[in-house]
């Protein structure tokens, strides 16, 4: 990995703003972003990538290649939480192992978006179907996690309301928004996109910059909890993403993805959920400790991926593709 790839990644307004947010949290500044603004930015980013991805899907159409990409995505969404669970079981009880494994089996949309913006800053684009791949990878880990729980936990009653679990997994806000806007983007095509492009295209990187400031504040406030997670989990929070990314890149190589797609796929494999999956775990696995699974994905893996993961996985991919 060239040092200037790291610099190229870090010397971007969004990534630097992330560090500014962490810094402000660490010095206990009164800088605070109200939660409704976090919501504004995250809704905006999801809608924007959905509509844009849909518009590009309308241009490219569906091909064998795309189906291959989506299949690989589904595969990793099922496999990752399983092997993550068994690694975690070495040191953790079943409940916490399930909750953490499910988080890492799912994805972080903001990490994906930051990677996409890194691509665009080095002059590369991304394809609409990668957004579809991301959407596919959001929820399976929840189901896998709860299946593992039923197998390994000795709960009096399983306590899992499967109906609700499925509804919350597949109709959770990010899945609905992504699927919905992908569809809308596809249906309204060029003309639709042009009419809303000033908001959802032009402002994209600026909004990401604003949002990463917020994410920095949020992650920064949780840095103090890192000592609670212990060395094993800390190592896990960094090693597993790298492992997942490598696996993703190899699969992508075998399946003959193009390099941009391979890179984004590795990001999806490497990133961990800190919204949808933790919310589902809170409901179905109350025995697990949120300050483990939330801190790990939010305060360890997320910053690692944003700062180091992105250029690292990109150079790994470069090695195999050039």
């Amino acid at each position, binding site marked *: 990995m060239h040092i200037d790839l790291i610099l190229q990644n870090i010397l971007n307004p969004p990534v630097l703003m992330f560090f500014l947010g962490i810094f402000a949290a660490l010095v206990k500044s009164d800088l*605070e*972003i109200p*939660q409704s603004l*976090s919501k504004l930015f995250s809704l905006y980013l999801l809608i924007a990538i959905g509509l844009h991805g849909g518009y590009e899907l309308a241009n490219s159409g569906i091909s064998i290649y795309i189906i291959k990409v989506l299949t690989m995505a589904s595969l990793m969404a099922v496999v990752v939480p399983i092997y993550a669970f068994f690694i975690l079981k070495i040191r953790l009880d079943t409940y916490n192992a399930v909750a953490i494994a499910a988080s890492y089996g799912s994805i972080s949309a903001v990490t994906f978006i930051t990677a996409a913006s890194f691509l665009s800053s080095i002059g590369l684009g991304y394809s609409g179907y990668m957004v579809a791949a991301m959407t596919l990878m959001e929820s399976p880990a929840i189901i896998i996690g709860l299946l593992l729980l039923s197998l390994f936990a000795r709960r009096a009653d399983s306590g899992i309301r499967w109906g609700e679990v499925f509804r919350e997994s597949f109709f959770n806000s990010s899945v609905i928004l992504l699927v919905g806007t992908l569809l809308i983007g596809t249906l309204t095509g060029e003309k639709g996109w042009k009419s809303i492009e000033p908001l959802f295209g032009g402002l994209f990187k600026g909004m990401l910059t604003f949002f990463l400031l*917020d994410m920095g*504040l*949020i992650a920064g*406030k949780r840095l103090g909890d890192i000592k609670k997670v212990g060395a094993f989990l800390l190592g896990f929070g960094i090693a597993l993403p790298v492992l997942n990314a490598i696996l993703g890149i190899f699969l992508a190589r075998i399946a003959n993805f193009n390099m941009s797609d391979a890179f984004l796929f590795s990001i999806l494999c490497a990133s961990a959920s*800190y*919204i*949808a999956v*933790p*919310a589902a775990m*809170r*409901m179905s696995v*109350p025995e697990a400790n*949120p*300050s483990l699974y*939330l801190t790990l994905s*939010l305060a360890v893996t997320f910053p690692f991926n944003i700062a180091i993961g992105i250029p690292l996985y990109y150079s790994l991919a470069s090695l195999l593709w050039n």
Partner: protein
Amino acid sequence: MELARMKKVEVVIDNTHLRLVLEILESSGVSGYTIIRDVIGKGDRGTVLADEPSESFKNSYIFTICDEERAKSITSRIAPVIRRFGGACFLSDVEWLMH
């Protein structure tokens, strides 16, 4: 103006499980309830921050004014919810303005 002796039942619970509490209130036939969303706090399960990434981790604070009998029944049905998922529940005496 008539004042009736009633109980105030107060509950703090995370947004995820708010629904369970409301189901209990609804089915016990109270005349109404009030909800304050997105309160924060600290308890056995740690601190709830003002900027949880997922709203389902924030707390809601609910209170209902009802007669003593209903209050006892509600409390006893809320007990297992709180034992399992955390939260707080407490009762007090109020005089309710009948209307």
